[in-house]
Each structure stands twice: as structure tokens, then as C-alpha cells.
């Protein structure tokens, strides 16, 4: 099965991957690739590097907006549910307080706001990252498992507008990598 899979996909290039041995060379390389006009690329490191997201130009995520919307939905759903139950569907006189006893509704409203915002953050992050991804071509590079240990990788994808098999290879080789590999689909 796996053998057939390889035969089917071999030759379709996913991208070119450069391997680095320090975080600073990776950040430098990513900066230069960005300046050269590469956009469809990603960098991989064993730990979060703040400058890396900046170098990739990946600072404008839609996630904060989604979380805000999730929070508002939770807020209105929480308050609305209690209002509907206590004022419209099943009004009860509790110690002479008004049916819309809103201070009592706030704790649940608050918790629902947090719950919806948090769930939106988690699942929104999955969705925006395209997770779960059971198969990803970068793992076709046998050395890539070192990305979770002590190596740093930059992969420029073949779909990138500025991509050219030999030119991009030369460019990556000029950035001081320990190795440049072709990654197939």
C-alpha cells in the first residue's frame, strides 16, 4: 500500500527544505526569504521563537476577531436563556424581585461568555491551522523528525509565486544551511 502510494506521488514536488543548526540562522533565512518575495513558506523549530512569526509575516490572524464574536454569542446566549426562562416561559415570583432579576443572571452570562470565547479560541485555532492534518508532505524528509529536537527548518513551497526549482535551491544554499532537500508530495 505504502509502496503504491510512493509510486503514485513521486516526482510531484511539494517544496524545498533547508535545515539549519541554530534558531538565529533560521530567523535570518526566513527574513531574507520574505524580502525576496516568498510567501508560501513555513518555518519549523522545536520551541516557539517570537521573531519567527514576525519574519514569516504571520502576525495578522483572524483568530482574535473570531474569539470576540464567540464571546458575544456566549454572552447573549447566556443572558437570553435565563431571560427567556424567567420572564417569558416560566416566570416565578422569587422574594418579590422583578422577573428580570438581571444581577442574578450575570454570573451565568459571564461564564457562558468565557466558555464560548475559549471554545472558539481552541477550535478556531484548529480550523485556521488546518488541523487535524493526518498527512503532511514535510514528513517525507526523513531528517524532519529533528524539528522536534534540535534542528530548524525552512520550507519554501513549490506553489509559491517566486518559486523556481534551481534558483530557489541556490538561494537556500546561500543562507548557510546544513542541508537543502527536495520534498515530494
Amino acid at each position, binding site marked *: 500500500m505504502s509502496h503504491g502510494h510512493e509510486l503514485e506521488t513521486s516526482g510531484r514536488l511539494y517544496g524545498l527544505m533547508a535545515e539549519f543548526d541554530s534558531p538565529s540562522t533560521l530567523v535570518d533565512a526566513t527574513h531574507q526569504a520574505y524580502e525576496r518575495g516568498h510567501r508560501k513558506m513555513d518555518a519549523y523549530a522545536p520551541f516557539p521563537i517570537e521573531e519567527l512569526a514576525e519574519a514569516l509575516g504571520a502576525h495578522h490572524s483572524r483568530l*482574535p476577531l473570531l474569539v*470576540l464574536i464567540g464571546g458575544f454569542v456566549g454572552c447573549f446566549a447566556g443572558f437570553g436563556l435565563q431571560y427567556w426562562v424567567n420572564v417569558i416561559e416560566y416566570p416565578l415570583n422569587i*422574594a*418579590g*424581585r422583578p422577573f428580570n*432579576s438581571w*444581577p*442574578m443572571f*450575570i*454570573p451565568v452570562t459571564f461564564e457562558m461568555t468565557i466558555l464560548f470565547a475559549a471554545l472558539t479560541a481552541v477550535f478556531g485555532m484548529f480550523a485556521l491551522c488546518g488541523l487535524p492534518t493526518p498527512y503532511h508532505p514535510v514528513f517525507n524528509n526523513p531528517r524532519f523528525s529533528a524539528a522536534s529536537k534540535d534542528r530548524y527548518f525552512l520550507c519554501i513551497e513549490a506553489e509559491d509565486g517566486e518559486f523556481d526549482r534551481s534558483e530557489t535551491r541556490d538561494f537556500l544554499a546561500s543562507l548557510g544551511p546544513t542541508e537543502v532537500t527536495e520534498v515530494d508530495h
Partner: protein
Amino acid sequence: MNAITANEFAPPAAISGPRSKALIFGLLGLAATGAGFAMDHHHFFQAYLIAYVTWITVALGCLGLMMLHHLSGGAWGLMVRRQLEAAAGTLPLLAVLFIPIALGMDSLYHWTDTVAVAADPILTNKSGYLNRDFFLVRTVLYFVIWCFLAWRLRSLSAQQDATGDPRLFKQLQGWSAVGFLLLALTMTFASVDWVMSLDPHWFSSLYGLWFFTGAGLSGLAFTILVANWSAGHEPMSKVLVRSHFHDYGKLLFAFTMLWAYLAFSQMLLIWSGNLPEEITFYLPRMRGVWTVASVFLLLGHFILPFLILLSASLKQRRNRLMQVAAWLMVMRWFDYYWNVVPTLQAHHGEFHPFQGVWIDIAAVVGLGGVWLWFFWGNLAKRPMLPINDPFLAETLGYD
């Protein structure tokens, strides 16, 4: 990092600008407040109390934040430590400025009326605590503790500037640990004495925390305003950067939420208990024109700043953050106004919100002007950074 020298961080000469402006506003405001005294004694004392609490909570908030920073560390606090120290150093002035409140006790505090107390069994039982002499003794004690803490921490910090002795760092931490505990206790009692006892029948165990958190918020908002000014002048313009303001913005956001959390918790507990002796606080504030004031407090003190401060980029832009902080300073005054005025009006049998509010505004401007004049004077005496702090060099590389 090269050695950081006191000369390099000498206070800017431009401090005299805001300082003299503060004095002018202060004198004009006090003159207007004096006119208010001639017209209406009761209203003068009300206005003075609100203005006084507004400004002393800024000073106490700064003292608290300073101790919090000594205990926890962090770049945010080093950059503004001199401001916090200068604000805490105004406490002796505030002790003197308490005199009008002591003189106006009869007008402000119902429990000073011996005839009314004798006729009321609840107040009679409370008179062991709520009486003139003990009230004044307690107030003197608060000021002794506060002035001592401010003086001790400022003088240790001055020694650190002069000698750079590394042991001073531990001493500052030790005094802060003791001091923070003392501050929390004394401020709780002060809130009960000065504000909560305006209605001697009413009580709320959350009041001290509300007061303490409000002071933290006041102190922080004030710190942001002064930091924004510093960042526009040499030498601090070189070192106070975006990331510091981002930190102040995050802290401001947290304090705004904490204030709302405590103010609302008090309301929720009283609302769900619905006991006659407790609900008296909220009933007048949920009726007539005071409803508008209450909604305004909720919107202006919490919802609006909360929504604005959600934005990460706004917290990094000091000009925008400064506007939010200035607005919150106004809302801090309004929070005290909202806490004090309905109670006093109920005692004097009146009910007309915002009548003669100009006296309240004149008092807060007048007192604030004099206080700020003193504050800028303090700030001008020392280098703008704690030059020998063991963490300063690391902080200056922080961007």
C-alpha cells in the same frame, strides 16, 4: 551595558511646565471651592471628601503598586518606580489635607450626632467604634503607617542610588512584604471609617476590597499618564518603549476587570440577600435620576474601557492608552461621587442629583492641582530611573 549614571537620567527641566500649571489650576479650584463653602457648608464637605478620597487613593495605589513591584519584579515597575515613589511621597501632604474632613465631621458623619445615636440602639452599640476620638486616633494611625512605609521605601531606594549595595534589594523586598499587608489592613479600615460610615447602619464586607482595588486602578491610571509624559521627554524617551506601555495596558485591563468584579460581587450579594439593612445602599441608586448615574458608572467605568482595552495594538500606542487612563481617572472620581452623594442626600432629606455639582468639580480640581504640584516637585528631586537597581541593565535591553 555601560554604567548607568545619575546624570544621564537627571529629571527633565520640562517638569516645571506641568508643575506650575498644576499649581495654577489648584489655586483656582481651591478658590472656587472656598466660594462653595461660603454658599453651602454641607455641600463643601461632601465635595471635599470625594475629592480627597479621589487623590489619596492615587497616592495609596502608587504606594501599593511600588511594593507589589518590589515583591514581584518586572521591567514595567522599574521604568516607573520613581513616579510611584514620588506619588507615595505626597502622603504627608495628604495627612495635612485631612484636617478639613476632621473639622467637617459633624456635617459628614451622622454618627457624630450624640442625640441621634442615643435614640438609636444600633448606633449606640456601634458607638464604641464610631466615635469622634477613636475615629481621629485611627486616622492618625493610618497616616503614621503610610508615611512611614513611603519614607522607608523611598530612603532605601535613595541609598541604593547612592551606594548600589546589593543587600538593599532584599531590604526593599522585606519592607514591601510587611508593608503590603499593613497597607491592605489600614486601607480596609480607612474605607470603613471615611466612606462606609457615611451611612452608619449600612455595612458590606467587600467594601475594603473595592476601595483597595479602586486605589490600585487609580494609581495605575495616574502612572500611565505620567509615564506617557515622561516618554515624550529626554531622558526617558530613550528607554520607555512600546512594550512597556503594552504591559501597563494589560495591567490597566486587569484592574478594570477586578474593580468591576468586586463592585458587582457586592451588588450581587446584597441583591440576592435582599435584607432591609443592606439593600438600603442600592435602592436610592436604582431610582429616578440616580439610575442614569448607575448605568453611566457601569458603562463608563467597565464596559467601555473593557471593550477598548481588548485591542492589543491600542495598548501599545501610548497616546491612545493615555486617553483611556485619563478617562478612567475621571470615572474613579465618579465612582466615589456615586458612593458618597446618595447616602449624604438621604441623611439631609434631599434628593436632587447633580445639583451644585460645580462645587464637587472645583474641589477635585483644586485638591488635585495642589497634590500634583507637590508630586512633580518630588519627581524632580531624583534621577528618573533607579540607577543602581540590579535588574536595570537587563531592563534597558528589553524591547
